[in-house]
């Protein structure tokens, strides 16, 4: 028997895999942003504009890729998935909102 190994470039092979990588990547950006918020909060140091962009790209990218993954990608009759999409929209709206709130609090 011939053992098939996972291709090193597997994540480029299907749109769903690329979206998954985007979701995870932007999720990491968001986590980084939260760490920065805590750091600047504790040390009372100002944000660098690049950090703010990082947080915004993270929050938006993560929300949109979740939404795309659970609503637009799978066949429409998968209603259970659409519930995940609505949940993602809800959490995403909360994330983006809290991003702006946090940023506002620190800038002002």
């Amino acid at each position, binding site marked *: 028997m011939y053992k098939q190994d*996972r291709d090193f470039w597997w994540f480029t092979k299907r749109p769903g*895999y690329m979206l998954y990588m985007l979701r995870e990547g932007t999720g990491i950006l968001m986590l980084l942003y939260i760490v920065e918020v805590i750091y600047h909060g504790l040390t009372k140091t100002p944000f660098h504009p690049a950090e703010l962009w990082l947080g915004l790209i993270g929050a938006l990218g993560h929300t949109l890729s979740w939404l795309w*993954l659970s609503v637009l990608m799978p066949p429409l009759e998968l209603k259970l998935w659409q519930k995940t999409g609505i949940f993602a929209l809800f959490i995403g709206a909360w994330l983006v909102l809290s991003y702006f709130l946090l940023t506002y609090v620190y800038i002002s």
Partner: protein
Amino acid sequence: MATTRKKILVQRYVEGMEKPELQEFELEATAEMTVLDALNAIKDTQDGSLTFRWSCRMALCGSCSAVVNGKPVLMCETSLKKLPDTVRVEPLRNFPIIKDLVVDIDDAFEKMRSVNPYLDRMEARVENKHLQSPAQRKRIAQSSQCIKCMICYSACPVYKVGENFMGPAAGALAYRYIAESRNKKKRRQLNAATGKKGVWGCSFVGECSTACPKRVDPAMALQRLKVMGALNLPKRLLDKE
């Protein structure tokens, strides 16, 4: 009858070869031909040694799955007409190849068996619990559609690397029995599905549900099992069994 010329690239492998190779065939395809029809025509007229599984030819038995132009599908429901002039047919990914397009799916079946996918019928019969309302049936309708085609295992990038991950269809199967109103011993399935060799390897890539030809939605079944497993953890820890 109008025909179009198609180039069919089929991945070939027999025991003893160092690695699989693509072989090119040319074919006059009619408008109603599926990929499976094309392979059968090649086998009948060009190369009798070409090996692949099939049976029902109507997307019911789950035997004819393969990767066509990069996407795992049932060959009997994939129309040639909708594909470009060059069609590439490869075996399902993630499984060892036995010959040409035939792969060894024992591991996935073993994982399905491990979730105890059955009811204790004797007990149900004694208590006359076979009855099920339409609403109760509806809860398991979607996850009962699985035809064990293994397309979801081929689509899943985690199954191959995480040896302890049960895989999508086994998750859907476990969910089907846990959501089953006549099942009085759900703990058996729940413990199996949420144990060490259960759902936890899943990172919700979601491609299994996108690829499933029967719209089973194994990804959602796995996420629901994760929640059930987390809620069941205290009980499980206290369980002396």
